[in-house]
């Protein structure tokens, strides 16, 4: 009977990218000492825009608060539920965004954040770098409020 058996589907030799620990020193630095995170949410009450993205079930949630002055981001604060690269990338983004014109901040990509961190494992870029979306949501919230359509 053995000869009737079909072997399992063949797989080519490849190296799976499962090296979660391949973090750079910059990632480590931002993960262990995150910049601009919000310890007390109450203090962010007067923020000009707030955005939240992600879901707890997927393992990443990011919330971002911004204050805007003269069309530029004067303050960028955040909270994150997620892995080391989620925390580090949000922290890094918050340092990048401050001082940026809103239209430029909207153009920040996960790839740029990853580059500033000295690189991230490729699977981590897809699953954990959501800060740019949170920032975009916060800017949109700010724009909506400005035009009297606050949510």
């Amino acid at each position: 009977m053995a000869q009737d058996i079909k072997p399992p589907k063949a797989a080519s030799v490849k190296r799976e990218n499962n090296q979660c620990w391949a973090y750079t020193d910059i990632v480590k630095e931002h993960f262990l000492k995150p910049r601009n995170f919000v310890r007390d949410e109450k203090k962010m009450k007067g923020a000009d825009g707030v955005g939240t993205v992600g879901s707890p079930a997927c393992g990443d949630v990011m919330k971002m608060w911004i204050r805007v002055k003269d069309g530029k981001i004067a303050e960028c604060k955040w909270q994150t539920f997620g892995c080391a690269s989620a925390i580090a990338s949000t922290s890094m983004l918050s340092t990048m965004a401050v001082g940026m014109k809103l239209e430029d901040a909207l153009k920040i990509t996960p790839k740029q954040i990853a580059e500033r961190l000295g690189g991230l494992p490729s699977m981590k870029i897809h699953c954990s770098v959501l800060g740019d979306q949170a920032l975009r949501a916060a800017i949109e919230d700010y724009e909506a409020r400005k035009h009297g359509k606050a949510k």
Partner: protein
Amino acid sequence: MKIIYFDNAATTPTRTEVVKAMAPFWTDNYGNPGSLHAKGFEARAALDKARETVARTLGASPSEILFTGSGTESVNLALFGFCRANRQKGNHIITQKTEHHAVLDSCKALEKEGFAVTYLDVDKQGLVSREALERAIRKETILVTIMYANNEIGTVQSIQELASVARAHNVTFHTDACQAGGALDVDVRQLNADMMTLNGSKIYGPKGVGMLYVRAGIKLQPVIYGGGQEGGLRSGTENIAGIVGFATALSLAQKGREKESKRLAALRDYLISKVLKEIPRSYLNGHPTQRLPNNASFTILDVEGESMILRLSEKGICASTGSACTSRSLEPSHVLQAIGLPKEVAHGSLRFSLGKSSTKTDADYTVKTLKGIVEELRKISPIRINESVMRGR
């Protein structure tokens, strides 16, 4: 920095006695046991002796012991080898949802070869019920494979009882006992197991050595072909140093088992109660008593596992998590999902697996450190999971 190694379920250090027993087989006694000369005889004698030691420890006979390259390989040989050789008797396999991927992925591959597989559910604590197994057995069932103890949540199955159910129906029973080898009774006569997998790297032995017990009379088809070593069931020149190391480690682990398991269980319970007391919104995963003496697995709400273990690592503590972030699948662990934990909390799992060197001081330092880390990560976290999802845990 002092390292507190609380990841003994991943792998254990190799004990000094084992290293010592292995050493000559890399240098002086380098022979191939297949050779007909002095060096070969020397190696053959060591191989035979190791096999006898293992057989004696497990209550088996030497001809029932096969050496392989890993626990995973043993599982593959047990599953593929048995199913392919016994296909004419039926095409149905029964396993359960919290098995190691060695079993689950082998079963998935066997499905592609035309076998039907039932994946039994477990309860909230990770136990398979005898009744569920009984109900799942049908006339085509040829194999039941259920792990002895779970690597993530530590739940110990009632193997003896489950194996008896299989035996009563004349179905062959395999158990993956990799996590149990150093902590529980692995006498195959006591367990009623027809096949049993063990490996060296979890019992203070070497990595790269596995063992499969196959009860006399059970037919297997090889998975690896070649020179016909291990009774033709596992070709490839025998890893004598590894095999000697495995036999030494198993025999030492089983000799000291009762005393060490008692010590570890007390330390485990101390750690568990301290974590649950000191860290708000934390829960124990797995069975409160029917669990490995060295396993303490938790769910901690509102924080993610990888963040916890990397911050623990910064403080010298080695732990593990079932969070998606440490898997390739981006899904939290199948074990945590099988015991009914919603994904949003499964991401916050944390496992400490204690070992020979673990002390109460280690546990105290770990809880104190973890407490600070969880507080800090909760401050960063924007979510607050409703505790009602953990009702009844």
